[in-house]
Structures are given as C-alpha cells and as structure tokens.
C-alpha cells in the first residue's frame, strides 16, 4: 500500500440525529482521480470538509502519507499538503487574480510574517503564481479584480490557487459546476494532466465528466460508502443503479 497518498478510516460525523458521515473509509492513490458521487445531501461536501479539517470529525482518522492529521486544524492540513477547491468559490474578491495566486504561493512557502518587502515584487512568488495561472488559462486576467471574473473563471482560479500550494493531494468540490460545455472540456483536460502531479479526490455531479476522468469511483449514500470500484464496475453494479443512478437528477 505504499502508493496510498490520502486515507480516511472509519470517519463519523453526526448533526443531531442525522448521520452525515457514517463510517467512511476510503483512500486516494498516487496518480489517480478518485471520484466521489452520490445524490444531493449524501454528505459529500461534509466529508471533504472533514478531510480538510474545516469541520471537526466525531471520530475516525485522516492520514496523509501515513501521517495522522485528525488532531490538527485546516491551516495545518493545507501546509501538510492538502490542496482544496470549493463548491462555492472562496476567494479574496477585492484582490486581483494574481494576488490570490500569490497568496497561495505564499502559503506554500510558509513565512507570512514578512512586513517590509513588497510581496508583489517577490520574483519567486510571482513567477510561481503566474505559472499556475497560465496552467489554468488565466494568464491574461492576472491584473483583473477577482470580483470582476466570470463564474467559470473563478473556478479556474480556485484550481490555480490550489496548484500554487504544490499539494500532495487535491480535494476538489464540484470544479465543473456552472462552467458550460467549453469550460468543462477545458477543466477536464486540465485535471487529466493534473493527476500526475498529485492525485485528486473529486466530487462532481456531471456524470459524463466523472466517467471520463475517474480511475476509481466511490458512491456515497446517506453518509455511507456503498461501493468503490472502477467506472466499469460501478456502471454495472445493480445496487448502485437502483440506489442512485436510476433516479439521477442533474445538478
């Protein structure tokens, strides 16, 4: 199991009587895209939040490269190598696109307590940020105020910021939502290459994208993983067809 990068074991989370996450154990291996699918309210975002540490787990562990991260907060986990994109864009809206990317590069480098050097003139940070922007296709928007970006561009910027962190694993919460056909195609192309840099745990509603991208798929229903397998295995699994794919609703 040396190629396991990220692993959760027996994760639980209850909101009152609701079992949002129920005994979830899954892993993310080197070089793969592992998609997490399930109907609305199945607890996909809750699970991601538990892995990134934005939400405290009731019990269970989250291990990155065999290091248990369950007791540390989200900032620590990000520094350890969890790069995340959000379901609803979470960016510094008054900053420029480049500033947001530099913020990520700064987080990757570590020493934020620098008070006198102009950060936007730090060649190392700026070139890392620009490289990430170029990779997602936002190079020409570097000087744009983030609030003025389109919805899809913000998605791309989310990914770019995650890239600057040079993470060991990506966690992406619906990176293709609202992108349109062309944008989605671009993103699929991007993610296809990205898995070589670090494996991706992907939440996605767009089933075409999931089946095009994923190496493995886990199905989450009522907080529980009911199956994990290759796209082919999942496609033919009758239980899943009944529980999920049969009454699929477009997101």
């Amino acid at each position: 199991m040396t190629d396991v990068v990220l692993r959760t074991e027996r994760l639980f989370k209850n909101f009152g009587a609701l079992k949002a996450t129920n005994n979830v154990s899954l892993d993310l291996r080197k070089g793969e895209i592992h998609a997490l699918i399930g109907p609305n309210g199945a607890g996909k975002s809750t699970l991601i939040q538990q892995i990134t540490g934005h939400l405290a787990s009731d019990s269970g562990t989250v291990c990155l490269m065999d290091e248990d991260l369950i007791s540390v907060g989200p900032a620590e986990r990000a520094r350890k190598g969890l790069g995340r994109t959000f379901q609803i864009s979470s960016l510094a809206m008054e900053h420029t696109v480049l500033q947001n990317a530099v913020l990520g590069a700064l987080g990757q480098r570590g020493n934020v307590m620098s008070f006198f050097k102009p950060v936007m003139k730090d060649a190392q940070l700026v070139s890392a940020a620009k490289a990430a922007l170029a990779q997602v296709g936002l190079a020409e928007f570097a000087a744009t105020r983030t609030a003025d970006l389109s919805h899809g561009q913000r998605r791309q910027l989310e990914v770019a910021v995650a890239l600057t962190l040079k993470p060991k694993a990506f966690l992406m919460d619906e990176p293709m939502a609202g992108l349109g056909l062309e944008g989605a195609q671009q993103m699929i192309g991007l993610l296809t290459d990205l898995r070589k840099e670090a494996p991706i745990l992907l939440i996605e509603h767009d089933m075409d994208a999931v089946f095009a991208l994923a190496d493995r798929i886990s199905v989450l229903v009522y907080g529980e993983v009911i199956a994990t397998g290759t796209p082919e295995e999942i496609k033919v699994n009758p239980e899943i067809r009944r529980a999920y794919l049969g009454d699929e609703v477009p997101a």
Partner: protein
Amino acid sequence: MKRETWINGAALAVLLGVPLWAVMADEPFIITLATRAAIFALAGVGLNLALGTGGLVSLGHAAFFGIGGYAMGILASHAQSYAPIMEAPFLIEGTKSMPVIWLVAMVTSALVALVIGMLSLRTSGVYFIMITLAFGQMIYYFAISWPAYGGEDGLSIYVRNGFPGLNTLVPLQFFGLCFAILCLALVLMNAIHKSAFGLALSAARQNETRVLSVGMKPYHLRLVAFVISGAVTGLAGALFADLNRFVSPTMLSWQMSGEIIIFIIIGGVGRLFGPVIGAMIFILLEHTLGGLSEFWHVYLGALLLGIVLFAKGGVIGALAGREKAHD
C-alpha cells in the same frame, strides 16, 4: 499617478502648511490644533491596520491610547519628583526623554494588545466589538479607582518632555516631531500593506476560509495586526499626553474609542490616508462648530450621519471614486 495619491499629498501639504502659516500669522494655537490633528491621525493610522485592513472593529482602542498616555504620565511624574518607580528587585527610574517614553508606551500597549487580542480574537463580528469594549471599560474603571496616579483627576506634567536636539516647548518644533512620526507611521503602514503579511491579513478579512485553505492561520495574522495596531495607537497616546502635558482616564473612555473610529470612517476605511484626512476634518469641525452654538453636537451628529449614509468610502472615497487602495 492615481487621484488618491494626489489627495493624499494634498492632505499632508495642508497639515504641514497650516502650522507654517500659523507661525507667520502669529496664531500659535493653530499649531496646537494641527498637532492635535496629527496625533489623532496617528492613533487612527494605528487602528486602521486592525479595522481597515484586518476588518477588526475594535471599540476598545482607547485602552491603548490611554496606556500610551499613562506610560508618559507615570514615567514623567516620577522623573519630575525624583522618585524611582520601583527599587526592588531592580531600580527603575522615571524619565523625561521622549524616545524612552515612546518605547515604553509602545511596548506596554503591544503587550496589553497581545493579551486582549489573544482572548478577543476567539470571537468575531459584533461579539468582537463588544468584547473589546468590555476590556476597554475594565481598564477605564481600573484607572479611575486606582489612586496611585491620580485616579479620575489624572496626572499633570509641568514641563513637556524632551527630545535630543529640539526644544519641544516651541509649538512648531513639537508639531514637527509629531508630523515626522506620523509620516514614518504612514510609510510603515504602506509597507505593511504591500507586504506578504498585508496581503494575507487583507485576504483574511475578505475570506477567512481561503486563508485557512492555503495553510495560514487568520488568528495569528489578526493577532499580529492587533498588536502592531495597539502599539501605534499607544505611541499616539504618549504624544497626546505630552501635547496636553496631562493624562487622565478620559483617554481610556469608550467615547474616545468611538472618536478614533470616526476619524477613520470620515476619511475612508482601509485607505492609507483615511485617518489623516478624517482627523483633520474632525478637528476643523470641532473647532468651527463649537463656536457656532452651544448645541453643536446636533450638527456634528447630523454631519456624521450624512457621511455614513451618503458618502460610502468616506471623504477619500467620495473624491477618488472607487479606485481601491490595493494594487
């Protein structure tokens, strides 16, 4: 050059020009007013790092202003009476030297800001406003009932403290000193604003989750900002006490905290020169409206209301439009 830069330059020119004119017109009181404006501006510049850049609405910054004032009052009063502050375990004597007083004022305010910040920053939003108010009130009531340094009567210093090479009793020289410190603070704040820390702090105000997700702790960023902010406001307090040659718990009152916020809002939140322009306008209003009517607070209130309701972004915002200070 951007329009805001022109406005900033004009503000500094006016603040520097008025006292120079006053010397020629033999209106020494105008110099005192300008000094007061410069000092209030400095206090606002301090708060603006926490409030404008960091989004931390502190209604307790009078605590640091007052602590700076008392640092000056206590040191100078001991020097005046030749009584050491403490003899055991080691001797600490009072002093009338401004640089030493400033250092003590800043370090003390920073330490208190560290403690208050560590506790207060566990909360956010309205709760943060209120918990900082609570700490301010604690220190205020402590100062009133603590008899050693005058309680509510405050502490008077007979002669202004000294600065090597200057005669601080000459109004223009003391003004020059305060003005120089203000400029230094503006340069410093500008640097901080453009630094890695400034970028992260301002991002934490806009989106806390984003900052967490790139591996930074907003709590630490805010705490550092709060401490720097407290230290600068504390320095302003020491200067203010020296201007008046007097310090009292009034400097610690919650109305004082409110006034510092007012300077910032009049000028423009998060703008480097917001507090400078705000303080100048406030002093001007206080001086002119106060002469018009016994009930001048009514007009002051109406004016503030107008600024909040109709001039979003303060005076700089109204003049410079929506260009942002960030680049």
